[in-house]
């Protein structure tokens, strides 16, 4: 640096006085002025990424230590979406709990509901009727496809594959249309209830699902055409976010990330629930332990889910969708009205017109709820992101004493540092996208 600058002048930008005030001229290319001729020295840079950043998958904050473009340290900060659902549930009755837990992992609401209801049913010592179990499997597998499509879509967007994003949300909409037809809502359904499901499949739903089943294989195959063979997509994912089976087990990582290391650990197979042992499907694995393997596993899982949906339709038998016990089942089986809301005119006529006792019973059961014998259970299910476990404690009252959710996103996100330290900053995005965390589930 040889030029002399007047006192108070900026050494990095030349300036001149004008009638409007001082004007700076920033030209760039002045690294040698700033650092001298030695540009190879150490430069540690701490970058705060998020929580409001389009490619951090929701309100996730990363604190990255950078050495050039290489990440030397990655710290994950969460809690920006903490809504206290676990605490809230303690002040609602057991049936209302469904409405809360469905909002945790909002891309897999039906898994939250089912796992919660399975836990409550285990505490009660009851089992949902066969038809309700089959419907649960049916809606969960539709939900899995919808969830994987979002994972693919947002992951694609973060890597610059915008067509992957628009297509992913387009196909997801087909899944959500089905769920809306069945449950009345696109998301946050509160459809699965302790003892069964809120209402039977509406007329025409089976036909809609069958039609969807004819469309989806071709649509999903389109992703292989769009992305799988594409060189840019491959090079963004291959050997990125590496985590082998030892690392996965140490960090508690489950789901597609674990299966991409070659371990076929899927609770639907290893600890079957809801009759999954009777369905014919494969557990897809990959052996690359990287983001590419996770992409392939998710793609294959969607095809397997289609197989399960098809089998579930075939084994739907007429029957009740809620337990017989009138001290647990809500009094009316609702039917879906034209406005998308559930109603039961016959039941309303019964309680308002003919039976005082029925009205009292309805009122007590809905406002106060039923009692659940004291004790604790842990019920895990295989959600699209891994092991979703519900630890539910009852003190014998009408409200859950404690509900703790072991959310797979929360646990898997711990692997961020192991996956991205030592790699390029651009690969951090790919690594996190391949974990596919949902912050609603992480922060609860």
């Amino acid at each position, binding site marked *: 640096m040889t030029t002399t600058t007047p006192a108070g002048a900026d050494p990095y930008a030349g300036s001149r006085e004008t009638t409007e005030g001082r004007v700076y001229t920033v030209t760039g290319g002045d690294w040698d002025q700033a650092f001298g001729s030695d540009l190879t020295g150490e430069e540690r840079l701490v970058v705060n990424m998020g929580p409001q950043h389009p490619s951090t998958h929701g309100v996730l904050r990363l604190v990255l230590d950078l050495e050039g473009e290489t990440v030397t340290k990655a710290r994950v900060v969460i809690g920006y979406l903490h809504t206290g659902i676990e605490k809230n549930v303690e002040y609602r009755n057991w049936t209302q709990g469904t409405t809360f837990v469905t909002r945790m992992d909002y891309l897999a609401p039906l898994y939250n509901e089912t796992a919660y209801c399975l836990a409550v049913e285990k505490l009660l010592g009851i089992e949902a009727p066969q038809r309700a179990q089959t419907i649960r499997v049916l809606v969960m597998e539709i939900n899995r496809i919808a969830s994987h499509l979002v994972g693919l879509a947002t992951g694609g967007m973060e890597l610059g594959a915008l067509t992957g994003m628009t297509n992913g949300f387009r196909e997801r909409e087909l899944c959500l249309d089905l769920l809306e037809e069945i449950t009345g809502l696109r998301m946050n359904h509160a459809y699965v209830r302790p003892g069964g499901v809120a209402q039977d499949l509406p007329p025409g739903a089976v036909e809609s699902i069958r039609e969807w089943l004819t469309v989806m294989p071709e649509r999903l195959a389109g992703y292989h055409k769009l992305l799988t063979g594409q060189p840019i997509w491959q090079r963004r994912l291959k050997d990125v976010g590496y985590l082998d089976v030892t690392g996965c087990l140490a960090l508690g990582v489950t789901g597609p990330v674990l299966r991409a290391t070659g371990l076929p*650990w899927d609770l639907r197979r290893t600890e079957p629930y809801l009759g999954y042992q009777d369905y014919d499907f494969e557990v897809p694995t990959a052996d690359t332990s990287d983001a590419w393997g996770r992409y392939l596993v998710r793609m294959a899982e969607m095809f397997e889910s289609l197989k399960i949906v098809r089998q579930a339709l075939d084994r739907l038998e007429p029957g009740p969708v809620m337990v017989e016990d009138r001290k647990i089942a809500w009094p009316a089986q609702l039917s879906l009205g034209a406005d998308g809301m559930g109603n039961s005119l016959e039941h309303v006529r019964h309680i308002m017109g003919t039976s005082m006792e029925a009205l009292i019973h309805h009122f007590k059961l809905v406002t106060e709820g039923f009692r659940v014998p004291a004790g604790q259970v842990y019920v895990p299910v295989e959600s699209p992101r891994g092991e979703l476990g519900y630890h539910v404690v009852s003190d014998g009252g009408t409200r859950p*004493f404690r509900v*703790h959710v072991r959310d797979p996103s929360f646990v898997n996100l711990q692997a961020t540092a192991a996956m991205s330290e030592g790699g390029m900053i651009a690969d951090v995005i790919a690594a996190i996208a391949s974990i596919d965390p949902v912050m609603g589930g992480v922060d609860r």
Partner: protein
Amino acid sequence: MTGPGDRSGVDAGQGAAAPSGGFRKGAFGVAGSGDTSGFGGLVRVEPGGAVALHSTDRPYGGWFDEVTDALIEAVGEATYAAAVPRVLVDRGEITYFVAREHLLTLARALRDDDALRFELCSSVSGVDYESSGGPAATPGRPRLHVVYHLTSMTYRRRIRLEVAVTVEDPHVPSVSSVYPTADWHERETYDMFGVVFDGHPALTRILMPDDWDGFPQRKDYPLGGVPVEYHGATVPPPDTRRSYR
């Protein structure tokens, strides 16, 4: 101990006083008015409320005995007797109540022993058993429970460890040296319940803001709120509202 809700083996001498206040009458729990539900004649006694105070007798049934024997062999009979004062089998799940000074020994044996192989720590969470329907909590009663769910992928088994500590001395050794996945779980349990995990690499708040006061998931944490007036009627804040017991 057979079916759900069966509390026949209750030992009221273990940590709980006489079951005063532990009575519940009727399926709907009303007091003072008639119970029209038809279940008004039932009276249940729950000395510990949600806390089971008894121990299941051997044999536990199924693979529970196999795991317990393997655990005794791995840590030695004397250590096991000191480390696990009670075992509870309920609803097809086994819970080992563990003394905190032996937790790490047990966890390491459970992970490494060939006959046990609990490779995966699925979940660590807390439960605050204050006001759990039993007698009023006496000072010094260990009301904060830390619950560990361990999974053996090799044998496809799940067990639960439970450690109870008091609010006055809420220290539990961290298992993050055995199960690195427990890192965030323990931070969350600290954040929500104030349980201090000794030996944790960085025990800080994780979900609540860093400068937050108190531990929100404790049962005595104030809910806050103000009365809200609307059209002349007043809705009281959440913790003073009427509710069913």
